[in-house]
């Protein structure tokens, strides 16, 4: 069936099978490969994009569910002149990546977190990114980058002390 999806401000009309996943539409039909497919089971968050401004895992959204809606991918964050989004700049400044595979999803999840929690604490950053896994375990610098971005200066040096957020019920 035909879907009309705005990706990074550009309207795309595509013919898709109903079972086509949004991430496959983005990568294979729109041709934007910054969004990675990691686990394919909505666990790892590598495929995180924004759907109408909110982070979603695009491996668990059908393209038909995104019909007539707006998608933003990692390619849509930087300014048209190439200036990085402050979150991208913070990840770069603080080396918030090792192999880089989870990075697009981490950045998109972090940008979405800021919409909901404009000045997150370290704990809120860690919990806000719980849907994104870094297989290199590079969380320290990722959290540092997000907190630096939250301060308004991507180059700032936040002090962070890892906190245990595994006890879900005991906030």
């Amino acid at each position, binding site marked *: 069936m035909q879907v009309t999806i705005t990706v990074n401000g550009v309207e795309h009309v595509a013919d898709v099978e109903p079972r086509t996943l949004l991430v496959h539409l983005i990568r294979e039909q729109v041709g934007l490969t910054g969004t990675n497919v990691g686990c394919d089971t*909505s666990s790892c968050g590598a495929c995180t994009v924004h759907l109408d401004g909110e982070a979603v*895992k695009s491996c668990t959204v*059908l393209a038909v569910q995104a019909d007539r809606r707006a998608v933003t991918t990692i390619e849509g964050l930087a300014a048209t002149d190439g200036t990085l989004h402050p979150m991208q700049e913070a990840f770069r400044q603080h080396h918030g990546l090792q192999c880089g595979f989870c990075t697009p999803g981490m950045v998109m*999840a972090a940008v979405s977190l800021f919409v909901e929690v404009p000045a997150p604490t370290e704990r809120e950053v860690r919990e806000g990114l*719980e849907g994104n896994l870094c297989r290199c375990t590079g969380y320290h610098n990722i959290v540092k980058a997000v907190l630096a971005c939250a301060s308004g200066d991507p180059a700032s040096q936040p002090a962070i002390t890892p906190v245990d957020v*595994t006890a879900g*019920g005991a906030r």
Partner: protein
Amino acid sequence: MIPAAFDYVRAESAAHAVALLGEHGEEAKLLAGGHSLLPMMKLRLAVPSVLVDVGCLVDLSYVRDAGDHVAIGALTRHRDVEISALLRAEVPLLAHAAAHVGDPQVRHRGTIGGSVAHADPASDLPAVLLALGATLVATGPAGEREIPIGGFFTGFLESSLAADELLTEIRVPKVPGAGWSFQKFNRRAQDWAIVGVAAVHGPGITGVGLVNMGSTPLRAEATEAALRGGASVADAAAVADEGTEPSADLNASEEYRRHLARVLVRRALDEAAGRP
């Protein structure tokens, strides 16, 4: 991984969805947020030949004050339950628990109605709604009917919804002055609870729901009876696993789950005693 092929129809209204379900029968499944159904379809654990998409029915996304209860549209997303000022004030247990479902991305898509209708014993919200004694509203060809949540879960991923019925509303009683707690024990962020407990205890209400302690979401009935009889928290928690049949999996043995249920119910009741 992609699902097996299926036909897709978008419902324009609740009545349209019911008509589509009637037309396609048992072969059809309702699609809301899709965060339980689509992963199962990718693994071929569910192979519906028709998906009826109700995700666009925005008129079924609401949280309304209805006097003695709060009415929640079935298509209300976990995120909207989590941040609802009305729920935070009147049914804080539900708003709090909704913030622990999956992860932020899941909560942006998953719906309360989808979670209940999926009837997964490992899901958080069914246990919470059991503890609160919610009433479910289903819409079918003959109109609406109310289903007390105590009679809703009939088996593993099975409910008393008919094949041509759509869950449209969840009615949650207000619990002024009642203490509450939600305990979720897991080993990885974003994971399902190995065991979870939802408790509400106060004037006129005593409810304890258990996550992942059997083939359906269920209540800790022995604990509830003990509390109503005036038992101490320790004594009431000691019988939390009575009448349950937890399964064993790679996370936990049956006996470990029983132990967790007793410990988490005690923690929940202790915490509830200190709230509100």
